[in-house]
């Protein structure tokens, strides 16, 4: 992919990328940094894109990697993995932190669905998982977060 095309496509989806990063990292500074880093990595790997129609998915995946690494760095000191904990353990946490402590597979779904703004079908495509799995993970994540939303597709 040529430079100009990459730049135009990135600018087209910059707000979506930012919201995705915000869903992961929860503050403007880190979200900017993450989008910045993802775009940098994306540019360097742009000739790797085989299916340009999936550019958004491709960039989002890079961004998720970047955000995940940042979260991992933040929680490196944490001794008990939250994956092993129950919903009651999330109750005392501020929502922002609770999202941060979600198991990655649940957090991905939550971020892509509600921050990135993807449909369940698009989320399934982006994560290469069945749509039913998206539904299950979404329900589980919202339950852990104690957020009650109406069912949608």
């Amino acid at each position, binding site marked *: *992919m040529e430079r100009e095309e990459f730049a135009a496509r990135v600018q087209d989806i*910059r707000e979506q990328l930012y919201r995705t990063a*915000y869903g992961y990292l929860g503050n403007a500074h880190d979200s900017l940094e993450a989008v*910045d880093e993802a775009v940098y990595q994306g540019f360097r790997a742009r000739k790797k894109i085989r299916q340009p*129609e999936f550019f958004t998915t491709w960039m989002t995946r890079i961004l998720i990697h970047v955000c995940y690494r940042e979260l991992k760095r933040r929680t490196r000191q944490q001794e008990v993995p939250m994956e092993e904990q129950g919903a009651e353990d999330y109750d005392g946490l501020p929502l922002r932190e609770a999202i941060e402590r979600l198991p990655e597979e649940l957090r991905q779904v939550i971020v892509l669905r509600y921050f990135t703004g993807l449909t369940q079908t698009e989320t399934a495509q982006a994560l290469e998982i069945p749509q039913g799995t998206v539904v299950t993970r979404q329900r589980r994540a919202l339950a852990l977060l104690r957020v009650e939303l109406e069912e949608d597709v």
Partner: protein
Amino acid sequence: MKRNEAWEDLLTQAEQIPEELETRLNQTIARAERREKRRRWLKPLIGVTGTAAAFVLLVNSSVTFALAASRVPIVRELVEAVAFDPSLKAAVAHDYVQLVGDTYTQDGVTVTIEYLIADPMNVSVFYSLSDEQGRELELVPDLFDADGNSLPVSVSFGEERIERNESEKGLFDTIRGYLGLDKVQKTLYTWRLHASKEGVIQTQMQLKVEVRNLEHWKDAEWNAFDEPDAQESRAPEAMFTLDIPLTIEPQFLKSGRVFPVNQTVDVLGQKLTIDEIAIYPSNTRIIWHTDPENDAWLTYLPFYLTDEHGNRVDGIQNGISGTGKDRGYGGGTVWLDSAWYDTAEHLTLHLDDAAIVPKDQDTVLLQADGQLVGLPDYIEQLEPDPYGDEAAFTFRIRTQKGTYHTNTSSFNGYVDADGQTDSFDSISTYVMSEAENTFTNSYPMPQGVRYPLTLFVDFAPGQKLEHPIEVHT
């Protein structure tokens, strides 16, 4: 606050997109591009190690001179390929093109040398490339004379996708890019070979082109996302080397004109001598040197030319912008776009601003703890902004509106406590803030050296000259 309210608040916050996002991403892409270009620049320095291979000459081995590009329909693709290079664009518009059409095939890879634009100091080779296996390839040339002696040239690379019908190409296709893939006729690639002196470019030369497979190399880069601790990349795999004879029609090597100048001017208290202005179809070169008695290094010389009709020729935006420098070389060459096709009678060389680094303030110390000692007042050290897991030191440089430097290195190199010299090269990051007239650099802390390091200051804010300089040819 109830959970659902907190949820809504969080989503609302995520919608507050910082205004700087757009600008910042453009800067990031520019930074990544600079790094990429630098990486590409380094490639020609890598020795060609592949085995020289026999090639199959398929068609049209005779060299033909295109008398009129407009009368040769296929040249339309060349017009597109040079659209963003004012010098080569003018050359093509003036039919200054050598048609070639020689094809070489090996192991399913076919290279066709389509056109040359040559002058006594430069050769631009336009070629097309195809591979039966559809591999992602990279072709890196070295230039030799007819006797096999290596010729000193620097190489820059380019590629331009040529579509079937210009009228169908619109903004939509540009943005949607690959949706227009079926319209692509072919991609025209370019090697631009630049000599440092006349005599290097000859009528009979030989290109040895290393053909590299980038597939595994790209995979390695991609895998770095999944394995951040793994080595990021390894060298691309060299498949074979193509030997390609390069024959330049003699008339192209007579097309330069050198104007001796030999004028010494005062620039911010320093003596600067303009030796000559050399004008070629591919570019214009301003050759200069400084007085060793000067008490400061001249680090920024943004020359430009004008003619009596008000036409202006500026520095080259894409590609090599100059060679040499004051410190270490005592002079160098600034490259401008070509003034070869300017029909005016008089050209005037201008210098409106410049930058100097005093010789007694041209180094700073970098200590093992990352502290910089002896910084000039326009450089401020910041908290480190590491790239990945690498330790780094970070600083912000104040510049001056209107004399904004780009593609510059703040510290060009260093010498360690044992006297070993090296450069920071490609891993520095660079963030500009045009609003604040600053740019911020991060450099990795060099490993395997003995601290403290002495860094060479290569940047100073540009200053408008009280008396702008004009040199008439």
